[in-house]
Structure formats: structure tokens, C-alpha cells
């Protein structure tokens, strides 16, 4: 059987890729995608811990499904925000959207 740590390593790698994407991409959609990757890394952890630590109760799976649901909602809202920003400002580059300091 594959040891637990392998899953955690994969999840950590995925998380780092996502983090890098969220921090380094200039395109707001890229940032959103990075966030999705991070959420999925968390999901892998949840499922791995569920399978290896508490396989009898379904908490881990259920929690992962919650995360997926929330991620879907987040993506929908995020994309809606990006579309509305694009309509107003003709850009999806994160650095050019700096209205928050006002």
C-alpha cells in the first residue's frame, strides 16, 4: 500500500504550485486557478487522512465534498467579479486593479 506520506507530498507539491500561481500570476483568472489548486491540495490531504486515520467515519469525505462545493461557489463569484472588473476597467491584470487602496 502506498504510504500516507506520499499523498501528503503530492498535496504539498500541488499546494506549492497553487500558491506560486496565486502569488505570481498577473492574470486574475490565473490567480483564481492557483487558489483552486490549493483547495484541491487540501482535499487530497483530507481524503488521505480519512483513508489512513479514520476510515470508518465519513467525515473526511464529507468535508472534502464541502470544500469542493465551496470552491465551486468561490470560482463562480470570482469569475463574476473578474468579468465585472473587465467590463469596467478593460483589464484582468491583478496589478492594474489597485482600487482597494482608496
Amino acid at each position, binding site marked *: 500500500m502506498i504510504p500516507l506520506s506520499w499523498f501528503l507530498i503530492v498535496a504539498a507539491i500541488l499546494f506549492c504550485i497553487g500558491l506560486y500561481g496565486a*502569488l*505570481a500570476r498577473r492574470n486574475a483568472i490565473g*490567480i483564481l486557478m492557483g487558489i483552486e489548486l490549493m483547495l484541491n491540495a487540501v482535499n487530497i490531504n483530507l481524503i488521505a487522512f480519512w483513508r489512513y486515520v479514520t476510515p470508518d467515519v465519513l467525515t473526511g469525505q464529507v468535508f472534502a465534498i464541502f470544500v469542493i462545493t465551496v470552491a465551486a461557489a468561490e470560482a463562480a463569484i470570482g469569475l463574476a467579479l473578474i468579468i465585472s472588473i473587465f467590463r469596467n476597467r478593460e483589464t484582468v491584470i*491583478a496589478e492594474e*486593479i*489597485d*482600487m*482597494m*487602496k*482608496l
Partner: protein
Amino acid sequence: MENLVRLVPFIPIVPLLTFAIIVVFTNRNKKLSSYLAVAAIVISWLLCMVIVFSAVAHMPQFAGEEAVHLTLLRIPTGSRTLDIGVQIDPLTVALLFMVPTVCMMIFIYSIGYMQGDPRYSRFFAYICLFTTGMLGLVVADNLLLLFICWEVMGLCSYFLIGFWFEKPSAMWAGLKAFITTRIGDVLLMLGMMILYFQTGALRFETVFEGVERLAETNPDLMFITALLVFGGAVGKSAQFPLHVWLPDAMEGPTPVSALIHAATMVVAGVFLVARMMPIFVVLAGMPALTWVAAIGAFTALAASTIAIAQDDIKRVLAYSTISQLGYMMMALGLGGFVAAVFHLITHAFFKALLFLGSGSVIHGVGSNDMMEMGGLRKKMPYTFWTFLAGMLALAGVPPLAGFWSKDEILAVAFVQNPVVWAMGTIAAFITAFYMTRQVCLAFLGKPRNPEIHAHESPPVMYVPLIVLAVGAVLLGLLGVPEDFPFLGPLLGNPFHHFLAEQFHHWHYVHLPHVGFNASVMLISIVMALGGIGLGYLIYGRKPLVAGQPDPLERMGVIWTLLKNKYYVDEIYRATVIRGAIGVADLFFMFDQDVVDRTVNLVGKGTERLAWVSGLFDIHVIDGLVNLAGKFTERWSWVTRLFDIHVIDGIVNGLGRVTSAVGQELRYIQTGRVQNYMIIVVVSVLLLVGVFLYM
């Protein structure tokens, strides 16, 4: 077979890998991408042929044995496991012969047709992914994998219809196809869920065992489930009332129309019904199957009449496809399982041929409008002769493929339900007529638009046409009825023997066996030749000249009705779409009228209350306040001194400090979201560090 089944997973995986390789690595190299795609489909085709030929070699046993399985994945879901795998049985093998062969021809043809397109590589990546979906669907041994592949195809169809998304019409057509088929997909998913909860499995064989009990305990639910599954097929196979997306899908590149919207994806619905046949027949009286037959027959007839009045060369073929899919559904609905699958396979060959032929015409002429063509016979000889072969096959002229398969369906219909048989026969007549119209308009006469200089397509395009034409001419010989004079005993109807035993493990499945019926065959030959003759009389004897209206316009109202496709799109716009907008408006009005009014009312009330308390304020409170004020004034004179010297000192000091800190901190507030995120990440890391070392 047990060993060969190990090859099966690779059939869909090879194109899937190629899709990934093209997307990630070779996207920039157009030539390499297209060659990779063709290589992938050739490998898949070879694998399929190995399986097809070994199945044919083991023939008598193979048809009678149970399906051979290979489980790939076991997914634990609480107390049960969901097995995902592949299987080979006669139905799968039959499709494994057709799908990769047609796909391969279309891939090769696309090299020529898509030449010079700015998204050339992307096109090949998409069609590779599509092929994965179709092959996966064919080999799946459970509903879940089938559904996944089904959705992959739906997605690719959306991408490819909207492939030229700069054209608004293409973009909308893609959306329309996606949303319309989604209605069917939801129904199919509901059906799948019911089957899973009632039988505890999604694997076909287990489901078929389980539905027998369900049919006894809850026949109504069984009926609804079968209808829901059929709903999925209605969406995918463009049957009435969800057929509206298929004609619009012709906005995509022509190889896509041939690949997805004629030969493979749209037959997935028929395949699903064929695959799930036991759940339709398990109820006594087979009410679900009656629906299949009714919708199929209606679609076959209605779509064929619309095809008469279309001027776009591809739209004629699109309606013809809907009509032929209706034929297949009709055959399934009457229990003619073998006839339906036979027609599915022959139709794939000649319809792909016709579409690629029309693509070749469009490539040479630069227009879709048949009124602008004419006289292409001399200029595009390869295209003309292959197109003619496809047209005769579709019209059902003996001894081409379409004749044998269509006749088998009509023979079944004649025995099972004369009304359906009559509808099918009329549709056959109309089919022959509109195909003749198409050939006459496009290829005969003189060019109607002098500005168009047509030319024959390159060999990479017409060689696939020739291969498909050979299939369209000869394939029918696999399914000649055994009691047909001379040819029958000679060929022995191998196709029927191959498929007839598909469901014999389930004792409740009784499919009718219908033999050769000379009068039905004679009538259908007369119909086919009559349709062609009438078409030639109207369009062929005196070909249209430039600017001349279609002779059928004299039909008046009927012509307008057909030209506008029975106004189904308009009806949907007036009901479904208007309805959705209406509901949205209703909520908007509720917001405006009820919610806003309530808020305003509350506001008004508050205002009044404020006025009353204002009076009280002025007369009572103010008096008290003034009195207190006087005292306070005195006292404050004392405190003022303290204030100026002590408190102000402190406050000013604080102010200065805050201002200085703010001065420094404002550099952190950049307004850029990513800088904030970095701060969050660094803080979290610091906190983690603190926790670890405490």
C-alpha cells in the same frame, strides 16, 4: 478474449495521451500535431481491428458467451464499491469496427480541410479528445464511465461547434448545443441515480439483473427510469423535441460535422438505448419502448420533410441525420435491435461520406449555399462520384448499404406496427427526393454564380472519400437477410448472427425475429426510385439557372412552414426562453414593488416618529439641556485650563505618533491583492514557526 481485453483500455487512452501531448508540447508545431493525431487514431484503429478480427474468428462461441470484463478501478463508497472497467461483447465489437474507421478517415481528411487555420493544432487536440470520449463510451462496462465519456463528447462538441468563435453565429450555436443537450444529460443522470439506488450498481449486467426485481416491486418507477434514460438519448441523438441544436451545429468545421454530428457522437444516444435495451423491455407491455418508437418515427418523418426546403448544403444533411437517427430509434422502439445497430453502422459510413463530400464542395466553392453552386460534376469528379455513391446509399437504392439496413428496419416495422411502417416508408420516399434535389442543385447544370471558380480538393481529402464510398457501397452485404434469394444463403447474414444473441442471458428480453419480406422490400425499392425520379423530374431535367426560385416554392404555405423548420425555434423562443426571462422579470418586479415599498414605508414611518420626538426634544429636553449647559459652562471654564495643558499635550502626542506610524504603514497598503496575499502567507509561516518551536 480474456487476454485481448487487456488491450481494450488502450483504445481510448492513446488518443487521450495524444490530446495531452498536443496541448502541452507540440501546440506550436502544426504539422507535427496533425501527424501525431493521425498516428494516434491509426494505433487505436489497429488495436480495434485486432479485437474485431479475433471476435469474428471465435464467432459462434463469442456471440453466445457472456461479455468479457476487465475491472480497472474499484472506488469504495461507504459500504459498497463502484467498479469501473471495460467490456467486450458483440455490440461493443460492432461499434469498435465502425468508430475508429470513420474517425481515421476524418482525421486524414482534416489535414487537408483545416490547412491554414490559425488554430490548426488545437483542432486536432479537440478531435483526439473527442475520439477518446467516443471509444471510451463504446467500451465502458458501467453507466458511470459511459456518462463521463458522454459528457467529454458533449464538451468537445461545444468546443468544436464554436471552433470559429469569432463568428457570433458559431458561438451561439455552440452554446445552444451545449445547453440543449444538457437537458437530456440531466434526465440521464437522474435515471442513473434511480438505477443506482434501486439496484446498487452501475455495471450494466448487475443493473439488468436488478431491474427485474424493480419492475415487479415498483413498475411506475421502472417506467419513469427508462424514460429518463431515453431522455438522455433524445438530447444526444437530436430527437424531437430536443433536435434544435443539431442543424445549428453545422456552424462548426465540416470534418467536425461529419465526425461528431453525423457519424459518431449523435449515434451515442442510439447506442445508449441499444445498450440499455433490457431496462426498456423489462416491464410487461413495454410502455417505454412505445415512446421510443413513437418519438423515433415522428422525428424520422418530420425531419425528412424539413430537409426538402433547406438551401444550405450541410443543413440538408443535418436534417437528414436527425431523420436517420429517428429511424434507428424507431427500430429500437419496435424491438429491432440488430436492425438499428446495422443501420447505425451503415449510416455512419455514408453520412460521413456525404458530409466530407459536402465539405469538399464547400472547400472548392467557398460557399454553403446550394443556390450558388451547380455544374460541379465536371470540376470535382472525385467528389461527385463519391457523393453520388453516398446519396444512393442514403436513398436506399439496392444493393448499397443503406438499402439493406433501411429495409431491415422497415421489415421489422411492418410486422410490429403498420402505422410506424407507413411513416418510415414515406420518410424513405422523402429522403430519396431531397437527396436527389441536393445532388442536382450542387452538381448538375451550369454554375449559377459566375464569380466562383470551383476546383477539385487535394488527394488527402478525396482519398478518404473513396474509402468511405467503398464502405457505403459494400457494407450492406454483411446484413443481407438469409432468406433473400441467391445472395442470402451465399453471404449468410453474418451481422445478424453476430449480434442476435446480445441479450439472451436475460430471460425477460424477447426481441422479435423478422425475416425477409418481399413485398416490403419491393415497396421500399419503388419508394426510393420514385423519390429519385420525382427529384430528377423537378430539379434534374431542367437544372435551375441563376436567380431562378426553387420550383417547390409553388407549394406556398407548406414551403414556408418547411423552410422555417416548423417554427420550432421560434416556439421555443416564445415559450421556454420567454418563460425563463419572465420568471426573472417576476423576481425583479417582486424586488421593486414589494421589497422596495416595504423599505420605503418603514422609512416614512421613521420620519414621522422623528418629527414627533423632535417637538418633545425642542420644548422639554432643550430646557433641561440649557440649564445643564449653564452649569457645565461654568465647570468647563475650570477644566479648560487642565485640558489645554495636560490633555491636549497627550492627544497631540498620540496624533503625531499615529501619523508617523501611518506614514510608514501606507507603503504596505498597495491595493494590490497579491501583496496582501504574500503578507498572509508570510504571517502564516511565521505562526507555524512559532508553534513548532514553542
